[in-house]
């Protein structure tokens, strides 16, 4: 049957297989050594973890390398004058050449994974997890499975294969597109690598620009979902997306991207192939627009990197001009494959690149989109969190009034941004006594987005106007005292921490883990904690002014926690600090452990409470219990360890939560 009349040429496909099979074979060797070989040598039980693990580096390396190599090989005929002439004079249409070459390369890149999947099926036998959280791989990750689970099934092999397919399909399609616009093999390969990582690179630069230029805009964390949408490599590496083992929680938010992006790129590649000026084979790029866009991207990326380094080191923007110019000269020589770039075309490219980089730098410098001034409307915010006050940490404020109060503090900071950008507003805040604090506001929006701002501001600025105090005084900032009072002491574990000053060395925290508190002691601690919270044994104004005082004293090591803790060397100072310091924030959270199906298999409820004020009931209880414990330990050790034991400084309550069908009860 002859099939080359339509969109697919069987003859060309088979020829590509004959010509390039060594590449697939080399890929298979890497796959084999990364998976099936381990099962065969280490046994199914220990080998299966590595064989199907989501961050198995062998698989990831092989998948990416094969994707680029396959595209470069099967489309190599486009990159030489002789081959492109001969191939296009043969009985092929451009459509049949494109489709056949694309399918050939994809099959070659996938072949090692296909054979590996078949091998995994052949080697398959049930492997049951003995207990949860006991399986480790390469020190990289812990895999949580429910004891008794079979982790070597057809379903999991299928999932592994789908993940391989997605990673290769995505990377390969982008690499093919690179070949369609490139004019020679070297540029094809470099462009394939570049286009595969250009979106994440631009995303990182965007984050750095925001953080560098926009007042209060943070270099916030890279949202996993955003990164995963950009390339399945992040999904494969994170394990929480389409991980090699897991169909994680984000799977259905990213799968449409992994389908849509390659299809769009494939279609665009086809359109460009139809238009490809074959006479430009051996040039760097065959389309003028591609030369311009790739050149511009190179200038934006490398000009930005150089500029941002200058900005960080010297705090001026000359680096963008220097970096942009150097990048332009090199990029222009590459994309036009000539040293003679000082012509009309070069000038046009220079103007475009300068405009692009200028718009980016200028846009961020002048805040074109008014990002700095964004304060969300209260009705659009589901909750708000603040960080940097110590007394209101880790609370999600949902009351619209409190959200409004935080927004007011936010607006006030923004109204003073010019002073803050220029430096310390010394006169207004009282000269050298100004203490600055990182103050972070996180708005969790009703639409699922998150808006984060971080300001380095004088503490007193946060407290001005009484909004913070009003939030603190509201019922919402109070922990659920009833829940604390309701805790069963027999089910609560209490971790006590004490501080030690080793000579002139740093102050360290140590946990007294061996000491088992009695239920009566635990009940006393819980009760004292609830009392402290209920009676509000701290206030914002006090915190703000006395923190400022404490910060300037010699001998204080690291911020808030240590302020209220005895350092041993200066009891008089500590006494003074105790007079003013507050009890720290209580931090309540639940940590869950999930198996690979996303089910909760165990959970721990934590309540961490920092000690500090002499007015605190808990402080008194803990100091007394802690001293008793330390006293006992010192006596047992003969007191000869050279350390000065200090009173207990922190308490951490942990309650193991029992589960019923995956739900916390």
């Amino acid at each position: 049957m002859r099939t080359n009349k339509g969109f697919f040429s069987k003859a060309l496909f088979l020829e590509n297989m004959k010509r390039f099979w060594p590449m697939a074979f080399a890929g298979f060797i890497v796959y084999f050594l990364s998976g099936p070989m381990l099962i065969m040598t280490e046994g199914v039980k220990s080998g299966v973890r590595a064989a199907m693990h989501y961050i198995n580096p062998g698989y990831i390396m092989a998948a990416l390398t094969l994707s680029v190599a396959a595209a470069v090989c099967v489309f190599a005929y486009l990159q030489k004058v002789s081959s492109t002439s001969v191939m296009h004079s043969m009985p092929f249409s451009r459509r049949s050449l494109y489709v056949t070459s694309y399918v050939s390369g994809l099959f070659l890149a996938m072949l090692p994974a296909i054979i590996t999947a078949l091998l995994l099926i052949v080697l398959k036998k049930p492997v049951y997890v003995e207990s949860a959280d006991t399986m480790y791989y390469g020190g990289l990750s812990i895999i949580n499975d429910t004891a008794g689970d079979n982790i070597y099934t057809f379903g999991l092999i299928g999932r592994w294969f789908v993940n391989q397919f997605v990673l290769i399909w995505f990377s390969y399609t982008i690499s093919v597109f690179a070949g369609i616009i490139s004019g020679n093999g070297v540029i094809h390969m470099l462009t394939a690598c570049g286009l595969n990582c250009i979106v994440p690179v631009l995303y990182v630069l965007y984050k750095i620009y925001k953080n560098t230029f926009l007042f209060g805009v943070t270099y916030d964390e890279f949202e996993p979902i955003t990164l995963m949408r950009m390339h399945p490599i992040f999904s494969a590496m994170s394990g929480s997306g389409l991980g090699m083992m897991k169909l994680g929680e984000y799977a259905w938010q990213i799968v449409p991207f992994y389908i849509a992006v390659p299809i769009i790129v494939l279609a665009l590649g086809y359109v460009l192939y139809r238009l490809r000026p074959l006479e430009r084979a051996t040039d760097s790029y065959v389309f003028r627009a591609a030369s311009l866009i790739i050149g511009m991207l190179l200038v934006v990326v490398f000009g930005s990197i150089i500029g941002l380094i200058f900005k960080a080191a010297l705090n001026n923007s000359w680096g963008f001009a220097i970096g942009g110019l150097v990048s332009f000269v090199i990029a222009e020589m590459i994309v036009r494959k000539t040293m003679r770039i000082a012509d009309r075309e070069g000038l046009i490219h220079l103007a475009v690149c300068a405009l692009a980089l200028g718009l980016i730098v200028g846009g961020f410098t002048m805040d074109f989109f008014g990002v700095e001034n964004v304060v969300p409307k209260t009705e659009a915010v589901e909750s708000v969190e603040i960080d940097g006050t110590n007394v209101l940490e880790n609370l999600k404020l949902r009351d619209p009034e409190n959200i409004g109060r935080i927004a007011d503090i936010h607006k006030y900071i923004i109204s003073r941004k010019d002073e803050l950008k220029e430096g310390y507003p010394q006169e207004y805040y009282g000269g050298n006594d100004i203490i600055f604090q990182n103050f972070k506001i996180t708005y969790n929006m009703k639409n699922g987005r998150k808006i984060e701002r971080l300001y380095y501001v004088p503490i007193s600025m946060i407290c001005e106007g009484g909004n913070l105090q009003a939030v603190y005084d509201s019922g919402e900032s109070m922990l659920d005292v009833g829940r604390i009072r309701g805790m069963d002491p027999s089910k609560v574990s209490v971790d006590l921490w004490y501080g030690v000053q080793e000579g002139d060395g740093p102050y360290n925290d140590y946990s007294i883990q061996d000491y088992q508190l009695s239920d009566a002691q635990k009940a006393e601690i819980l009760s004292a904690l609830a009392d402290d919270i209920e009676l509000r044994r701290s206030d914002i104004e006090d915190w703000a002014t006395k923190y400022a005082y404490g910060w300037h004293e010699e001998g204080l090591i690291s911020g808030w926690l240590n302020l209220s803790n005895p350092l041993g060397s200066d009891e008089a100072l500590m006494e003074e600090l105790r007079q003013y310091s507050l009890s720290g924030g209580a931090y309540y959270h639940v940590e869950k452990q999930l198996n690979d199906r996303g089910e909760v298999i165990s959970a721990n409820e934590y309540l961490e409470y920092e000690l500090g004020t002499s007015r605190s009931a808990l402080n008194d209880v803990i100091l007394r219990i802690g001293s008793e414990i330390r006293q006992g330990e010192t006596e047992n050790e003969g007191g000869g360890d050279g350390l000065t034991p200090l009173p207990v400084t922190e308490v951490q309550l942990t309650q193991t939560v029992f589960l019923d069908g995956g739900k916390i009860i």
Partner: protein
Amino acid sequence: MIEVKGLNKSFGDHRALKDLDLHVNTGSIYGLIGVNGSGKTTLIKHITGVLMPDSGTVRIDGRDVFDDIEVKERMGYIPDDLYFFGSYSIKNMKSFIKGLYPRWSEERYSAMMSDFDLPENKKISKFSKGMQKQAAFVLTMSTMPDVIILDEPVDGLDPLVRRKLWKYVMEDVADRNATVLISSHNLKELEGVCDSIGILSQGEMKLEGDLEELKVYVQKLRENRGEDDGGSLSLEEVFLYEMGGDPMYSGKGGLK
């Protein structure tokens, strides 16, 4: 029949082909001549469907060549710049080409391989340039093309091989009414085989027509100018005369 009408092609600012017309009758051998850089190879790449015209049409037997698989199946093209898959022998190339051309003749392939005495299993990349050209010729002619496009076909070939090559071309024209277009700088050889000629200069068809009519025409011109020495003109003399430039005959068309 090969028919090119109003063909234009530019490479950046350079106009490689300018409003070019060309006509090759079925069963004739057409010699395409011109100085280096005149646009011969560019024109051939349009006729073989490699390049896309900026404007104008390129048709073979009334069908547009570009992207027409059926037209290409009936066409044999040997470029000046040869290409074979890396590390392939003639046998390997044969198995690929055979799958693409429905009229592949094993009989002719065997006969030609024997005639040219080429090693079937040796890597083509190890061949001399002349042997590579012979290999390309064998493979192309074995597809039994109705339209044969040859770009500098005898360049680098010894006289004996050249004679064999022309023999096969002439046979195809005589026996199968094949249409042949040959681009060459070897005007003496072209004169022996071509029945019509097109002279290309700076992307324009300067003169095109039947070879004998063209000679008579140029001779008359020379007579009118008092340049005639009484002898008959060779193709080379016609070419040189045209390239010497008579403004009257520059531009498209020429003798029809």
